């Protein structure tokens, strides 16, 4: 391999998949949308007589075989999209008390397979430059002030996004950082896969995740 990195990079070719215009190439089973009924063995009460509560689920597989994973990655809810961010969407991640896996999955959307930058989605180093704050983890006392100050520092309009079961409902670990009515976007999963995170951020700025009806499957680049 040449140490001339520019040529080296060109030689490797394009590694980015077409998601979210096409179906995910390597969607994980856990977590993904579950399908089923009648399971009673849920450690976080995500399965009730009314069905499956997506935001509480930690995808621990105890509901097998009554519930089965479908591989569908659309396990998020957008309550409010902000189309002002359609062309460029700058997000600031904040770890309020995460185990590290949500942090890694968030970071993974910038790896070549997903390349969130190509969609105009960028990570910023300060909330002052952010259109949205992405909160990961449960609430911990030491991070409360940092969370409040980060939110106050953001310019308007702004979105608040909860990433992962801990941030949305507290998951199995503790309490959620904010009341759920304060979230504009809720991304379920423990942790949500990069496919889910990317589609949720795209939807939050009014983008279209056309993979759901495109029938166009990406190839996994190896």
């Amino acid at each position, binding site marked *: *391999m040449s140490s001339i990195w520019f040529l080296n990079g060109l030689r490797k070719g394009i590694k980015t998949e077409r998601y979210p215009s096409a179906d995910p190439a390597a969607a994980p089973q856990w*977590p993904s949308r579950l399908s089923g009924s009648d399971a009673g063995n849920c*450690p976080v009460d995500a399965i009730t007589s009314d069905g499956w509560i997506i935001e509480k689920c930690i995808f*621990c597989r105890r509901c097998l075989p009554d519930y089965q994973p479908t591989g569908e990655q659309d396990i998020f809810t957008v309550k409010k999209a902000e189309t002002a961010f359609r062309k460029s969407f700058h997000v600031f991640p904040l770890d309020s008390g995460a185990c590290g896996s949500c942090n890694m*999955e968030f970071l993974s959307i910038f*790896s070549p397979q997903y390349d969130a930058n190509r969609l105009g989605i960028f990570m910023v180093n300060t909330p002052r430059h952010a259109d949205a704050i992405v909160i990961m983890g449960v609430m911990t006392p*030491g991070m409360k002030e*940092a969370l409040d100050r980060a939110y106050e520092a953001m310019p308007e309009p702004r979105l608040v996004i909860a990433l992962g079961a801990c941030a949305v409902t507290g998951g199995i670990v503790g309490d959620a950082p904010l009341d759920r009515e304060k979230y504009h976007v809720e991304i379920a999963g423990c942790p949500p896969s990069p496919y889910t995170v990317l589609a949720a951020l795209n939807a939050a700025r009014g983008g279209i995740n056309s993979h759901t009806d495109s029938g166009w499957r990406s190839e996994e680049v190896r």
Partner: protein
Amino acid sequence: MRYYRFGNPQGRFLGNTEKYSVYEKVISEQKHEMPAETYQNLPGELTFAYGPATGGLMESVAFNMHTPGEVIKHIEVDPYVKTRRLKVKGLTPRDALLMVERINGFHAASNAVAFEMAVEDALDIDVPEEVQYSRLIMLELERIRSNLEVVKRVCEPAGFGVPQNQIAYLRENVARIISRLSGHRYFFSASSVGGCQISKSGIETRIGGVRKEFQEIFDALLQSKIFLNRLQNNGNISEGSLLGPAARASGMKVDARLDEKLIPYRKLGFRPVIFDEPDAFGRFYVRSQEILASADMILEALDNNENSTEVDTAGMNGEGAARIESPQGDLFYYVKISDGRIDDIQMSSPSLLNIDAFRKSMAGNIFTDYHFNWESFGIWISELAVVMQ
């Protein structure tokens, strides 16, 4: 306890739990104190606060750097700003495992396996060697991914975008291998007390592919004098209690896999990667070589591994401990089980000693060295900022 005993401090110090100090074969109630060093700024010096929530940090952690402008004279690290409280006591081992896996999600396999082995030690549960091979595959795959992430992050402050992205690509490929193997990208719910459930279909070719691509990137990185200059003599540390890659980079032959009696590392002829440069370059080098070595071990272990189901622990009693080599060093678990429920649980994370080593190695460095040095230790805050209730 078959492998540990309570006693006076003896041997290599590995870290502190909430109640105990942990050594190679001894758990001691006599706590090894690690007093925080304070620093008073001299005239003209200032304290630069960095964190807890800002760019460049993967997790929430706060630094205070004392400096006259460029040189960092002293650094304080507060890893406890995001301390979580997990309710583990009173749970069955099965339910407790759901919590343990989420102590450090990126090293979930290490935490899960160490906890399971401590429970098995407590309850005299024998696990077949073929199943221990499956655990070895889990641990080494996790090590590959973790080391890839560290090497990637070391490239980042150098502005080395091409190798950084090529390694990010490999790291994601390993996450997908893990997902195929265990059903989950972070090994959550892949193993259990007495058991392990993984599928090795098509794994061999993919692991071989990652190994080959990383070898090419690593060889090319070693040719870049500018990159190496940013790492060499940055963050020298060769004395004191060092663990994991930081210890091995400074020439110490320390690795929990050498002491391991149940997971069959010895049968695979395991030999730790030892180097003699106790700086960020040495840590980068050791971690890179360990990626290659772990891939080789996995390929061999795939011939021998089997799965097994969970063991019922209802109504059982006992006290046990286990230590494994997580990607950043010795990870220790102690459990006491009464009537099938967790009565006490103690964990010692390698992050404690690695943060101490990082802090000491920073004195005299300049600001632009900080990022390389911090990332070269591969420290995970979540594993330290946790209290098990």
